[in-house]
């Protein structure tokens, strides 16, 4: 039963495990986690795309 429970838990577990030791970047007084850096970079990317991508052009009404 223990083995089947273990298998069941493994099946439900997330494919990417982020529970390990956190990775951090140190730059002078600044300490920031790599995960936070990635999220901030993604937010900046979304902002730049939102500004630069053209508005979708639908069919013009007559």
């Amino acid at each position, binding site marked *: 039963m223990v083995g089947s429970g273990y298998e069941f838990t493994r099946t439900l577990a*997330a494919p*990417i495990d*982020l529970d390990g*030791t*956190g990775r951090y970047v140190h730059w002078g*007084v600044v*300490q*920031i*986690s790599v*995960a936070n850096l990635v999220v901030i970079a993604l937010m900046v990317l979304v902002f730049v795309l939102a500004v630069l991508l053209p508005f979708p052009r639908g069919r013009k009404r007559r």
Partner: protein
Amino acid sequence: MTRRNRRAATPESSAFPTRPYDLIKEVTIAMVLVAALTAGLAALFSSPDERPVTLGSWSRTASADFTATAVSELDGTSTTAQYGPPYNHTPGAGQKIGPLGLQRLAGVRIPIDTADDFVIQPLRQAPEPPAVTDALAAWSAAPANQQQAWASAYSDALGKAPNGDPAQVAPGGYGPVPVLTSRLLQLAQSGALDGELLTEGGQFYQTDYTRPLLFLGDGTYFANLAQAQHLAGDQWGMMNETGNYPGQAWLWLYTFWYQIEPFKSSGNADALVWALMALLSVALVLVPFIPGIRSIPRWTRVHRLIWRDYYRTQQPPR
């Protein structure tokens, strides 16, 4: 051009070009996309899964730290014992902004006597061996200065013992303190102390973790765990999460102040940072009224980039 002329030159709203726009469609697409993204990321990464730290796990993992902390609760030298409001009336304690004592203004709303609430009461509530009954009676019968002397002497002796091990403490005049702390350690290791500190609030639903958390926070074990996970105040901990999960990146400015002087070394850092952030928040709300700051969008011209199709069709200003 005068202000009156500029106002007169503004065309009616109906004169502006218009375009059809399906707001409902956009909101629906955005909601579906965000829901799919949320479900997908949750399935891929799950969420932080740290085991809870309890008085039981602490006392089993770091019994010497637990005992030393229990003694500091008895002799009144723990962080909680000297915190001031809202827990006690420690003279001079509490954060201030200039002459304004914010903690003192709020008053003692959660009165805690660390010796009684964290050590003596839990021991009285649990079934006691005769030695513990005698120790409790001796403690209660002694005057406050005698209690203080016993606990301080035992605290010093623990500090000198190898690894702070109570079993290796040199003999001395510690009164009933070793018996009390030894029994408290047994209670904690059995898991009973967690429940007893929860019931001290006298409420039916046990969701008030103030007492066990304060006791836990008075030791070094919990602080060391936080330090190892980059969650301490001097590690930008407010914006971090356990493991490799992203945290609260939007708190960067709040936690930033704790990393620099004069806040870093100030005993009033919490009050000062709170006041500074309140001031900056008011400034943010008042941006449209602050000369210079309110002109930044006009200088950066980001709006012309967003509406570039429109501005491309406009006549260049003469």
